[in-house]
């Protein structure tokens, strides 16, 4: 069952990312990305991380991607896209991607090997995670608040209407 789910979700995920890359229309790409995020969320679920899976879907697929789509809507897509140049660029990029993935797989293979299996029973329940968040990970958590304020201030100052101070 797990294997089947893993296979399905990963194939959809890869396919969705592929779709995101291949679609010319940004809106379609965004939709594909949402799909991919949902699939990853599913995979998180497989890995005993239900809370994170939910967070993933809500924040990523729900919030962040909505932001994307808003922006896409604000931008005149046809105007924003001009005819393709530099097609040759594709091949070295893909070539390098292949090498890169080869390297990564080599590393993973050397380090873990296929035999090592999942043997965990630690379940990432909201309660446990919440406790950790406010004890062991309090400091990073506080930092994220600063991070968000900074990001907000930054985002607002960049796009706010008042052009001249």
């Amino acid at each position, binding site marked *: 069952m797990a294997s089947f789910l893993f296979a399905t979700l990963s194939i959809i995920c890869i396919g969705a990312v592929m779709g995101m890359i291949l679609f010319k229309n940004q809106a379609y790409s965004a939709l594909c990305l949402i799909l991919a995020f949902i699939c990853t969320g599913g995979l998180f679920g497989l890995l005993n991380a239900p809370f994170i899976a939910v967070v993933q879907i809500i924040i990523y697929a729900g919030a962040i991607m909505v932001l994307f789509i808003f922006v896409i809507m604000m931008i005149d897509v046809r105007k924003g896209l001009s005819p393709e140049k530099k097609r040759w660029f594709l091949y070295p990029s893909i070539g390098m991607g292949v090498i890169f993935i080869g390297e990564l797989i080599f590393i993973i293979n050397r380090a873990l090997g296929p035999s090592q299996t999942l043997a965990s029973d630690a379940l990432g329940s909201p309660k446990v995670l919440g406790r950790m968040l406010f004890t062991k990970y309090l400091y990073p958590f506080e930092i994220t608040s600063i*991070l968000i304020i900074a990001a907000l201030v*930054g985002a607002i100052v960049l796009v706010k209407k008042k052009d*001249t101070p």
Partner: protein
Amino acid sequence: MNNIWTLLPIVFVLTGSLLVLLLEVFIQRETKDYLGFVSLMFLVLSGAACVTFWNKGYSYFNGDLFLDKLALFLSLLFIIGTALIILISMKYLSLQNTNYGEYYSLLLFALIGTLIMVSSTDLIIIFLGLEVLSMSSYALAGLKRNDEKSGEAALKYFLLGSFASAFLIYGIAFLYGTSKSTEIFSIIDHFQAVSSQSILVIAGFGLLIIGFGFKIAVVPFHMWTPDVYQGSPTPITAFFSVLPKAAGFAVLLRLFGPYFGQITQSQNIFMVLWFLSVLTMVAGNLLALRQKNIKRLLAYSSIAHAGYLMIAVLAKSHYSLVFYLTVYLFMNIGAFSAVIALSKKDKEYLQLKDYAGIGFRYPWIGATLSIFLLSLAGFPPTGGFLAKFYVFSEAVSQDLVPLVVIGVLASLISVFYYLRVIVYMYMREPSTPFEIDTNNAPLVLVLFICLYGVIQLGIYPGNVLLFIKQAVASLPF
């Protein structure tokens, strides 16, 4: 010692930052200088906190936030640097139409990011600190909203920066994968215990190098640097050229200090860093040779300096690294201040040919800029010389002679372009004379502080060096 006061330096800055935001909303004034002074006030408080914590060894959050001497020294350095940046920004903002109150706030957020980075040994905290720094930086880069170049700079910085962050976090994932922890020391300890997964650690470290290499602008991860430096508001460029770089090196110091100190199989990493250092020095200097824009030139020069700093990392010489960073802060901010001084309403003079003859038109600006450039080039008796001197000398004592030879030859190349600026300032006839606004007291103050710093550190670093040695001695290796 677990102590809530540990938070003080960061909290002061944070308070300042938030207060600035509030004041900006509630007090509407033509100039926002008062916000700068408020920020400065909080910086002073924060700095004072750092000073008083010296020798105390405070920590908080179960040691996640740990103000050892190195952290305190670097924090103080960053606070001074930010204060200097604020001083040079005041006039600039109103002249260049960038007068947003959020500017100071974002600057302080960025400072907080660096403070977080240097006062922790947990990779995830460092990462979060880096992101705080980055978020603020992205926004700061684009803050000249009516300048297309500024927007482009922000875009490039942001896209490539988040691209690099992904590599960084992926690297952290690898490290976490081996040791189940993101704490540097446990990663190292674990690495020694379980050698079967060492490849994962090495790859993780590799990705970390890439991630931080981006921040500190190491070739070939430097490509954003010139564009971002050129497009950003000049005080922000000064900020970029110093603080993120210094913070990045501080992390590398904490990361590779124990790594090089304890593990013998680090040959590959060592070799990679060696090549990166060489590439950075050589390419950075070569690229700077033909630059016509002073900010671009200084951008490439800062890349080259990253190369020299890498030598210090390779030589495991922490005090020389920190000393170099200290000197570098003063000379680079000084140089940018002089660049900023050459501006008037809505106009900056950034092309080299604009500099023709200003050495005699504005003798003080010319003289100070020359001294900063000479210091960057490493001429005695400036701090730049002493900084290079310590780095190279330590490297030679670690038998890194070929690296040092390449380093000195690269710095020879750098002499050419630094001197070329001076050539323009003193040896060319001015083509189109221009007037600049010289009534800029904070900037003059910064020029003199930096001048003093560069000369003092060059002739008698005495206590500063002493503090630095104490600071690095607090490292547990």
